[in-house]
Structure formats: structure tokens, C-alpha cells
């Protein structure tokens, strides 16, 4: 989905709030949330693709205003409701207030049937597709052309795995793009590499 989470290359953001030896957790509840969703994954209540997608489905105003670990919490709670473990009403009764959850999911999809095995050095274009469900590729590479420089082992296909659909595992390809081709006349010179699933790519002749 073209969600609010997909912010790579968005303009208007200020300086990185960088500090030396920065912390991961600032409040004890943050580490507790991290533990709770990890436990849910460990118990097989949901998988990491479902977890990521439930974050991406947060209402955009909520997503942007929530801290990182509030987003984790919202995903955990949303999936527990969707899996029938608890109702939103019970959560709100226990929390003594409104308990915002993510928006409903659109359907997922299986592997792209015309996908091809690729080799290092192949020139590839990212397919121009607008998928309503989970997609694990940043929008800034859509329709762009790059070169394969690395191949990964096969991973579960996120577009299916986030929706409980069976699909074949797929390798991802590390594709090298030029920043100045991704954002013509509007980027610092650099090579940008993205790990892209086989189904998202087309070989350029």
C-alpha cells in the first residue's frame, strides 16, 4: 500500500535528532512493548510481516504523531483483536480509555507468475504496481532502473505472508540505483541500494 510509513525521499523533514551513544529505549514500557510483540511472534500469534503491515495500516495522523514504540504497541493490540484474542471493548475497559487500533487490511496477493530468476549484473526495472495490501519495497524505486549486485537466500514473500496467503519463498536482489536518477536534479550524489523481492522486478533486455 502507498502508506504513510513509506517516507524514504520525502522532503520537508528537519535535522536528524542525533546524539552520541543514543539509547534504544527511553522508558521501561518501551522495552516491555518490544518484549510483548516478540513474545506474540514467538508464540506464533502473528508473524513479522503481519506485524509490519499492522504498523503501516495505522491511521496516518496517528502514525505520524506516535512514538516508535507506540506504533509497536498499536500493531500488537490490533493483531490481537484481529486474531480474536481480545476485543477492542475489553482493551478499552482495561485501559480505562480509548484504545486506537490500525485500519482494516486490504487483500494480499501471491507471487507474480511472470517473475524471473536474475543474476548479478542484470539490469532491472521495478514494476509499476499499486498493491492495496502489504508490499515491502519503498515507493521511491517504483518504475526505476538499476543493476543487480547481490542475491539473498529465499525469504517468505511479504505480500502473501502478511495476509496469511501461501506463496513460494523468493530471493531478494540488492539493486543499485543512482540517487540522481531516483530524484533527478534533487538529490546528493550517491548509490542507493535496495533489497527487492523477485516478484517486484522485471529484467531489462
Amino acid at each position, binding site marked *: 500500500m502507498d502508506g504513510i510509513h513509506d*517516507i*524514504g*525521499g520525502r522532503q520537508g*523533514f528537519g*535535522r*536528524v*535528532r*542525533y546524539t552520541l551513544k*543514543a*539509547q*534504544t*529505549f527511553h522508558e521501561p*514500557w518501551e*522495552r*516491555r*512493548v*518490544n*518484549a*510483548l510483540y516478540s*513474545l506474540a511472534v*514467538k508464540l506464533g500469534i502473528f508473524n513479522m510481516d503481519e506485524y*509490519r503491515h499492522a504498523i503501516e495500516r495505522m491511521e496516518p495522523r496517528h502514525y*505520524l504523531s506516535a512514538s*516508535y*514504540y507506540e506504533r509497536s*504497541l498499536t500493531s500488537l*493490540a490490533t493483531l*490481537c483483536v484481529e486474531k480474536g*484474542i*481480545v476485543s477492542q471493548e*475489553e*482493551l478499552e475497559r*482495561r*485501559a*480505562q*480509555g*480509548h*484504545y486506537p487500533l490500525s485500519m482494516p487490511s486490504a487483500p494480499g496477493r501471491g507471487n507474480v507468475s511472470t517473475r524471473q530468476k536474475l543474476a548479478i549484473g542484470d539490469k532491472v526495472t521495478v514494476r509499476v504496481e499499486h498493491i492495496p495490501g502489504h508490499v*515491502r*519495497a*519503498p515507493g521511491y524505486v517504483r518504475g526505476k532502473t538499476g543493476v543487480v549486485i*547481490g542475491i*539473498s*537466500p529465499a*525469504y517468505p514473500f511479504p505480500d502473501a505472508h502478511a495476509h496469511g496467503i501461501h506463496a513460494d519463498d523468493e530471493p*531478494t536482489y540488492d539493486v543499485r540505483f543512482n*540517487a540522481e536518477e*531516483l*530524484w533527478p536534479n*534533487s*538529490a*546528493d*550524489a*550517491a548509490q*542507493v*541500494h*535496495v*533489497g*527487492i*523481492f523477485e516478484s517486484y522486478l522485471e529484467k531489462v533486455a
Partner: protein
Amino acid sequence: MPDHGNVQQNTASVEQRVDAIEAVMQDRGMEPKVFIDQFKHLAEEDWVPQNGARVVAKAWTDPEFKKRLLANGRAAVTELGLSMPAHHRHLVVLENKPELQNVIVCTLCSCTAFSIIGLPPDWYKDLEYRARVVRQSRTVLKEMGLDLPPSVDIRVWDTTANTRYMVLPVQPSHTIGWSEEKLAEIVTKDSMIGVAHL
């Protein structure tokens, strides 16, 4: 007080919401308290940047290990007794050179090789870093204190799938000849993300 049939109640605080979901998990027999304690230990004792620092120091002092590390990172780190979660099936180690700076990001969220380089710092997960470093890499690095001359090429790596990356920083020249243990002490998490030199 007027009788509104459908008044919007106030949003519960984030801590109330965490308590609520934890209580649900407790009631459903998932034993969250036990796992919270285990997780605290993992986060504080196991997933620490000292792991990656040992890998870097070994690569600086053992050319054969470095070759194996660059060829298959996941296999090489196991030689040092380190491990990665099952879903991190691939570790790609990116070697910095005097004329080349590699930098890691996850624009979609926060993925990192956390069992090797440590859990990601707060700024890595912030909107600003995720939005900007792919497009304004040189500018962002400069703002973060790493002012690279124009002769240094930049490679940005967006961690959008289950492959994980770590940067192998350049060994400072004044440390040539140091022991592996002493070298490991100078390697920082930020240098393995690629936003700082040593």
C-alpha cells in the same frame, strides 16, 4: 450535564494501553512477565555493539577472516560465537575505504542486524533519518558530524528485506599493531551503521 449518546472518550495513556495488553496476555496464559525478564537480558546483555566490535577487530587483524566475512557474513560471525535470529538469513558486510563510505538505513521502519551491531538507536528509527538519508546522504552525514570530502563516494543501503547489513569501518592508522581486544574497544555502533568514523 447534557446526555451525549456517543461521546468520544479520552485516549488511554500509552502506559495504560501497554498494561492492558499485557494483562490480556497474562490472562490467556502467555506468561508475558517471564518473557519480559528474558527480553531485558537479551536487550542489555546479548544484543550489544561489542559483538560487532569484536567482528570488526578480528577483520582488521586477520585477513583470512576478513575474506570469509565479506563472502558470507552470517557464517563468519558464528566463528566468534555470535548468532543471528532465524529470519535474518543473510548478513552482508560493507567495507568502507578511504574513498568509500557505506551507510545503512531502513526507510520503511527500523530493520538492523541487532544481534551483531546492537539494537538501533532512537534517531535511526526517527522519521528524519529514514526520509532524508537516502536522498540527501552527504548533507545528512555532514549534519551528523561526518563531513566527507567530495572525493569520497557514498553508498546507501536501505534494509527493506530480511538481508541485514553492517559496515566495516576503516581502521584508524594510529591503531595499526594494536591487539584485537584493544581494537574492539574503539569500535562504535554508529561506525557500524556508517554515520561516524573512528
